[in-house]
Structures are given as C-alpha cells and as structure tokens.
C-alpha cells in the first residue's frame, strides 16, 4: 500500500488527506518500475502543493502547512531547509508507466469478466452509482478545496458547479443503468426474429484534462459504469489529486476491485500506453486537438479501438442588432471568462453587428471588468489563476502575438506582479481573420472581437474555423435565431445564452472538435457495442443452393 499525504489548508484551518500512488484493484499501490515524478503545483502561488510517495519504503506521511495569508490558499513552503524539505525532494509523485497501465488493464479486464460487465445487473450498477453520488455530495466541500488548490478555480465554483453538476451526472446515469435496451426487429414473422443487445464495450481507457478535473471524471465514469464497462482512468498530470480522492470513494461506494483504476501519468507515457494498448477496447479523451489526433492514430495502429474525442474549439458568438445588449454582454463575458477561459467551448470570438458594435463593446468591457480574478479561497473571486506555468506562458505568447499582428488591446494585456499564474480579462479588437489570436485556441481569458454587416457575413465569419464545438447567437428576432442556429457549424448552439450545459443534453464537436457525444442518452452509445442476433426458428435451408 502507498500511504496518504496530509495537507493543512490555512484558509479553512482543516486538513485534507490525499491518497498517493496508483489506484489499481481498489488499492493504492506504488508504480511497478517508474521513477518519474509529478509535482502538483498550486497555480495561485507557484509553489509545490504536495508531493506524494508511491513507494512503501518511504515515510508514510508528509504534512505541509499552509500560510495564514488571508483569502489565499498559499501553501507556504515550510519545508525549506528542514527535514521535510529533504523528504519532499524524494517524495515527488511517481508517474505511472506503461507497465503500470498493463497492470491496470489486466485488473480491469478481470473485473469485466468476473464481477462487472454482464455479471452484474443494471439495478446493482444503478445502486452503486447512486451511492457514489451520495458520497461525492457528502465530500463536496473537501473535494472543492482540493480542486481549487490543484487547479486554481474558486472553491465556491468548484463546489456548486463542477461538483454539483458531477453529482447530478452520476445520478443521471445511475438512472440509465437499468434502462439499457436493444431493439427487436421484424425479419420474417413466420420463421425468424432478430434482436439487438447493447453490450458493454469492455475495458475503457479514459484520459481527462485539467480544466474540469472532477467534472470530466464524472462525464467519463458515469456512462461507462452505467453500461457495465470497466475503466483505466488517466487524470491530467497537472491535476491528479481529485481523481485519486474520488478513487477512495469508489472503494467506499462498494464497486468491485478493478472496475475503476486510476493511473496518474504523463500523456506521453500513460496516455500513449492506453491509446495503443491491445487489450483496451475503447479510449475516450478530452483535451487538445493535437493530442486527440495522436490518440486516434494510436488506436488505428493498434487494435482499432473505438475512439471518442472531445477536443478544442474556437467558438464564435454572434451579436445581432436586435439583441438585448445588456444580457448579451453578460453571456459574452461568461463565455470567455468562465473558468478563466480554460474551457473548450470558450466563446473566444465575438462578432458584433456594426450598428450596435460600439454600444455592445462598452457594455462588454464593463462586464469583463466587473469579474474578480483572484485566489480560489477568496469569496470575491469569480475566477482563479490559469492552471500552470506552461499554460500561463502560452497565453501570454498569444497576447504578445496579438499585439504584434496589429490587433488593438482594449482591456488587460498587462502582466501582474507577484506570484501566481494570473491572467486578467483581455480583449482585442480590430482583428483580422488570419491572426493567430483569431485562429488558434488560446485556452485563456483572451477574447477577439470582430464586426459584421449582414447575417450572412456573420455566419461566414463564425464558421471560418477548423473547429466546431460551440457557438452562440444573440438576437430578439425568432426567425433569425432559427436560421442562424441551423447555419452555425457546431455541436452545441446556444441561443440568447452561452456555456450552460445539462447532463441530459448531448455535448460534442463537429469538424475537428471531436468525434462522438458525451452526456444525455447519446453517451450510452459510446460505451456499448451493438450485437445483432439473428434467430431462425422455422426456415429450412435448401442445399445445395
């Protein structure tokens, strides 16, 4: 057994315990062979949040005490020059290796063949998923704090949105577990019948991103378990802590060993191993288009495993002259600033009809300014820092490129002094279609605002992208809403709203934003394989033909 680590949170005066190691067969175990380390960093302070040992010979706990800085989650490095510092150097999280993936896949395969899959009733799967939801709800505050520490997002948002929606997602799919139905199909009523069974696919690799670590976990785990699949989950190397914490709840809920396995690992190691594994039947990925392409290639080269991909976006929002500009400006601000822009559906291109351009822009700037980006434990914060140094640098390089390519930065664009990966709301105007900030997914709070004259032009600008994840339109003309919502090339179109998702409404991308759909009854298709059974009870075969 690998041991848990304890984190004291100054802002709450409480301690969080995080399990360490890899989660396989309902136990936390050390890596088979890896010496790779993953450091979990608090993006609000740039300090190592915690390091965890996966080796049983190391000390069993390490306690890090947070500073008492008001409204912050500053995890002061108390280890400097101390015994703890010496340990911390050793106690970095060891990343799961390809061999660990093999072990986890074998565990998942065994569970699928013996205690899960077709060996358990839908009613039982439903019961366990409901139980898991209850446990997640019970631990919501604790999970939210951990999510905030690791990801940077405000605790209240993690608790009320990420976790609130995740609990509902688990319950929604709990309800589907005993409603997996096939069809019976008329063939020849005198002699034959055909029917379909929607069997669980088998062992599923699930690779989730760092922007919504808990919620993406729930979106992946819930339908897979409802259908009877087993899982090898790879959380992001930036935000593995809550997935490990949730693994504890998997045990407590009573899932049999091997049904859910969690391997924190780098994408190039664990992610690659899962994608190319010969005994993984399906891989589901949420993340960048670049990585999604690699996963699909690996699936093609190995065992033609089924693939579902939920990838990037450069989602447009069209603001028409009849729109309620006050409301539209709020939705537009939410679209680009929610989760500090680290959202695959971020409405990062806003196109405004010329007649209302100035009026809208004024309101938009006012709304963007009203949002406080700050520390996650600060009640005033509506957004936190971006997740990592890598991401921070990437966003700033885009901001610089925007300036260099001649766009006008009318809000933000100035770095803060001090620690933390904070990026303030940034708005560019006077953009051109071929600028990098208009074409590329930035994944930060950086908005490009363009203008259009006619509906036709607006639609053309909106669709001028390789992506097709989300799109929004704001108009009080019902006919226009209908026309434009049909014309926009995206898996989700929001009319007079933006970025709101519901567990019973499917979500996914057109074009290069992905393959397949998550959420709703549609997600069940991603985790079942249809078997057609042809049954002859009356036809005699004439032979030879």
């Amino acid at each position, binding site marked *: 057994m690998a041991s848990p680590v304890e984190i004291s949170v100054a802002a709450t005066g409480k301690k969080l315990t995080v399990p360490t190691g890899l989660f396989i067969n309902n136990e936390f175990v050390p890596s088979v062979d890896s010496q790779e380390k993953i450091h979990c960093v608090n993006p609000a302070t740039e300090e190592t949040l915690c390091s965890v040992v996966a080796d049983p010979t190391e000390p069993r706990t390490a306690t890090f005490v947070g500073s008492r800085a008001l409204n912050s989650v500053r995890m002061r490095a108390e280890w400097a020059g101390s015994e703890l510092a010496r340990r911390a150097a050793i106690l970095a999280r060891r990343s799961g290796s390809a061999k660990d993936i093999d072990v986890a896949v074998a565990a998942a395969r065994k569970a699928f063949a013996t205690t899960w899959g077709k060996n358990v009733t*839908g*009613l039982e799967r*439903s019961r366990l998923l*409901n139980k898991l939801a209850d446990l997640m709800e019970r631990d919501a505050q604790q999970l939210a704090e951990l999510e905030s520490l690791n990801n940077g997002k405000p605790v209240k948002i993690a608790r009320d949105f990420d976790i609130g929606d995740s609990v*509902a997602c688990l*319950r*929604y799919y*709990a*309800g*589907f*577990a*005993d*409603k997996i*139905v096939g069809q019976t199909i008329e063939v020849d*009523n005198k002699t034959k*019948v055909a029917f379909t069974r929607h069997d669980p696919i088998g062992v599923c690799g699930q690779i989730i991103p760092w922007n919504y670590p808990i919620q993406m976990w729930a979106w992946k785990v819930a339908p897979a378990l409802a259908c009877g699949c087993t899982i090898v989950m790879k959380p992001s190397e930036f935000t593995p802590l809550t997935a490990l914490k949730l693994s504890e709840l998997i045990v407590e809920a009573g899932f049999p060993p091997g049904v859910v396995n969690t391997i924190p690992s780098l994408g190039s190691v664990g992610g690659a191993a899962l994608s190319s594994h010969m005994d993984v039947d399906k891989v589901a990925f949420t993340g960048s288009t670049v990585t999604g392409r690699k996963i699909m290639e690996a699936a093609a080269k190995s065992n033609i495993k089924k693939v579902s991909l939920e990838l990037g976006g450069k989602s447009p929002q069209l603001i028409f002259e009849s729109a309620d500009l006050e409301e539209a400006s709020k939705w537009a601000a939410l679209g680009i600033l929610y989760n500090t822009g680290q959202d695959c559906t971020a409405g990062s291109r806003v196109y405004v009809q010329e007649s209302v351009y100035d009026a809208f822009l004024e309101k938009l700037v006012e709304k963007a300014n009203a949002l406080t980006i700050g520390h996650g434990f600060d009640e005033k914060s509506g957004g936190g820092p971006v997740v990592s140094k890598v991401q921070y640098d990437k966003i700033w390089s885009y901001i610089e490129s925007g300036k260099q390519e001649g766009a006008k930065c009318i809000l933000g664009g100035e770095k803060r002094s001090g620690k933390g990966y904070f990026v303030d709301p940034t708005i560019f105007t006077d953009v051109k279609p071929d600028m990098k900030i208009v074409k590329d997914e930035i994944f930060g709070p950086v908005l490009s605002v363009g203008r259009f004259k006619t509906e036709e032009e607006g639609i053309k600008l909106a669709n001028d992208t390789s992506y097709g994840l989300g799109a929004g339109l704001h108009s009080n003309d*019902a*006919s*226009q*809403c*209908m*026309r434009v919502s049909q014309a926009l090339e995206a898996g989700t179109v929001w009319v007079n709203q933006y970025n709101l998702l519901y*567990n*019973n409404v499917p979500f996914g991308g057109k074009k290069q934003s992905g393959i397949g759909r998550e959420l709703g*009854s549609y997600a069940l298709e991603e985790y079942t394989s249809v078997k057609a059974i042809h*049954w*002859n*009870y*009356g036809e005699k075969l004439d032979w030879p033909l």
Partner: protein
Amino acid sequence: MPQTFEYTFDTPVYKGKTSFSTGLYINGQWVDGSKGTTIDVINPTNGQLVTKISEGTKEDVDLAVVAAQKTFDTVWGLNTPGTRRAELLNNLGNLMQAHFDELAALEALDNGKTFGWAQDVDVTDSIATIKYYAGWADKIQGKTIETTAGKLVYTRHEPIGVVGQIIPWNFPLMMMAWKIGPALATGNCIILKPSEFTPLTAIRMSHLIQEAGFPPGVVNIIPGYGTTVGAAISEHPHIDKVAFTGSTLVGRKIMEAAARTNLKNVTLELGGKSPNIIFDDADIDQAVRFTSHGIFWNHGQACCAGSRIYVHAKVYDEFLTKFTDKAKSLKVGDPFGLDTYQGPQVSQIQFDRIMSYIDSGRQQGATLHLGGERHGSEGYFIKPTIFTDTKPDMRIVQEEIFGPVGVVIRFEDDDDVINQANDTMYGLAAAVFSKNIDRALQVAHKLKAGTAWVNCINQLHPQVPFGGFKQSGIGRELGEYALENYTAVKAVHVNFSLSVK
C-alpha cells in the same frame, strides 16, 4: 380525528411494531372522511377485525382533486425539474427500504400472503420499481421532427395533470408502485384509491411519501369503495386520466364513465385466463415447478395466473402425477408461519366466489382431481385445487377464478393447442414449455397475449412492459412504455421563414 393504527407483530418470522394514522391523505394531511364513517379491515387468516380506517367519499375526491390541481399548477408538474422528481422518488425508495420488513408484515397481515413472499416480491419489486422510475424522471424526451426547411417542429411530453389511480387487493403495495412510479416521474398529481380490502400499505406509504419530501397535494390517497370513490374518480370532470388494475367487469365500467364524462385517458390492466402449455419435449420437472408457481403463487390471485394448463398427451400422465405431488406438498397456513407457501384468500367474498367456481366445475362434469375444499376451520383458506377432464365451454375453463384452482387439459396437436389457448376473451399472458426452441418461439409468437413466457412463468421486471391483449386491458405498465400513460404529447410548430401570401 382519524384513528391511529397500532399493531405489534410477534411471529416466528417477524417481530416489530407499527403505528400510523389511518386517515385519508389529502393535501398532505391525514383527515376523516367527509361522512365520518370507517371501513373495517379484516384479517383474512381468522376473519377478525384488524382496525378501522377512514372511509373516503365523492366529496373527499372533490377536495383532493382541487388540492392536486393547485399543486400541479404551482409546485409540481412543469414547475419541478426532473432531477428533483428523481431525488424525491429515490428518497421514497430509500424510505421503503428502511421500512422493508414493516411493509412486508403489513402486507401479509392485510392481504394474507406470506411474509416471505411479501418480502421477496412485493416489497423488493416495489422498491425497484420506484427507483427505476426515479431514473426516468430526468429523461423525459420529445423529438424534433424534420418537416420543411422553414420550420422547426418539436414535441414536448408534458405531464397529463391530475390522474386517478385505482388499485386492487392482490398486490396492494406493488400495484401502487407500478402506478405512482411512472406518474410521479413524469410530473403528475395523483388521487389513488387502494382496495377497501387491503388499504394498510397504501396508508403507510402516505407517511413515507410525506417524509420523502413530496409537496402536499402531489399524492392523495383515498381508501373507499369502488362504487363511491372509484366511481367518483372515473367520472370526475377534472381528473384527466384514470388508471385501473382489477377485473374486466369493473374496467368496462370505468371506461364507460370516462367516455360519458370528460373523455379522460384510460389505461386498464384487467383479468386473464392465461394458458400455460407444456409440450412433450419440455423439461418436465422444471415445467411442474413453474406451473405450480404459475397457478398457486399468491393463492392464484394473480391476473396473469397460468390457470389453463395444457399438457401434451405423451407426457400428460407423468406431468399430472408430478404436478399433483407438487401441489400436495405446498404448505397452506399462517402467512407468518416458518415454511408456509400459501396463506388465505383475501376475503370472504373471494372465498365464496372461488368455492362457487369449484362447485360449478363439479356440476358441469369436470373431475375434481385435487383439493376443492376449505383448509382449516377459520379464515379464508382454500386447498390447492386441480380439475381434469374439462370441456372448453365450462365456466372453470372460460372464466377467471382468481384462486388456487387450475385446470389441466390434454392436447395432441400443436395447432390445436394454439387454437385452444387463444379461445378466450382474455389476452394477458401465456407460457410455453419446450426444449425445442423453434417450437417454443413459433408458439409464443402465435399466442395472443401481452406477455409470453418461454420456459418460465410469472416473471416480471420493472424494465419490461406488462399489459393485455383483447379484453385484458388497454395500455402497458412498467418499462419505458408506462411513461406514455402519463404524458400528453404536444407538437410545437415554429415557423421562422414561411410567409403567407
């Protein structure tokens, strides 16, 4: 003030206490009936009074409908999201689980079925049904439908409104779960009438419904007689739908009342005279066990009871011998006894009715092969009964007896047995036993019944629809199908580019 029912169970299989108000449950309150009268609840094991409960009337139905409509318009129906309805139904399921033995004991006391069967089937399946429909509550979907490029057409599956539900005495709790599960999942308000013979679990459930957090007026429970409360529900101008499980005779009256008044939607789950066909290539030992379960389970008081047992001539003697032995081995007695299989029939009326059918079988010339008489000296017990040498037009072959009375009929030809099996006005269920799956499926597909069991009988699952062909009913309960009983489909046409010239 309604009486509080207090009872201590001190039996070999269950010891425990129960205590609850026996009032009508209207708008979240337990109240006396408008006439202040009561109904005697009788223990079928000994004919003794168990308790008195408040008797509902037409006036009480009126009050409940007003409350239900107000609730529907303000806090239920389209005002409550599916996730909340799911949460409440799951709460109810969990509370039933917490009161599992108490509910089973009440059912055994009131209905006469054994405590063990009440546990294993009635309460277990009721909880599973409630939780199954909890899962549907946030999955109510319409469709979008392609018409022309200039239009958007979509359907909404809206709750019907205030629905009446009239349930029988043979599976009091389970029939309640079958009725309220889909109705609540889809957002309806309910006026439920349990049978006057077996109201206790429904009344107990009213307390659990309250505790689960359903707003007042969502579920109203009015015990009473069919001719008063049942008729009031069926005729009520502001009840939009009535669902009934019971006899074909009463079902017809309900449908007539609905037709006469406000054309309310009707679903009916009625009687049956279900055939059970044993072919010469069946696994005879298994067929015997299932057949026994088919006709004697719940003392034959099951609408899908396999009461016409057709046995192929080649195995007739072997089957009859084994079936007779099996029937003889079934222990009849106290529902709370350690190894009792069969308890008393539910009521004196039912006892008399069954005994009159047994007399008619004798008089019409059938051979009384086994049983045919009362068991013991008190209560409504009837020994497992088998008739042979029947003719197709005998009453015991044609009519639903609803008791532990099976007729065993010899056949030789497959087509002939299909004709005989279908020679009934009913079409609820049918069973086929054969190891030749070609033969079994061919026959199963030709039987005119809403449920066909192959090499089993009397199996139900919350996910699988159940209902009748012919005069066994209208509509389907359970499964996704039941949602249709409680939703009204609205097609919305939105024009966004067509102009009228």
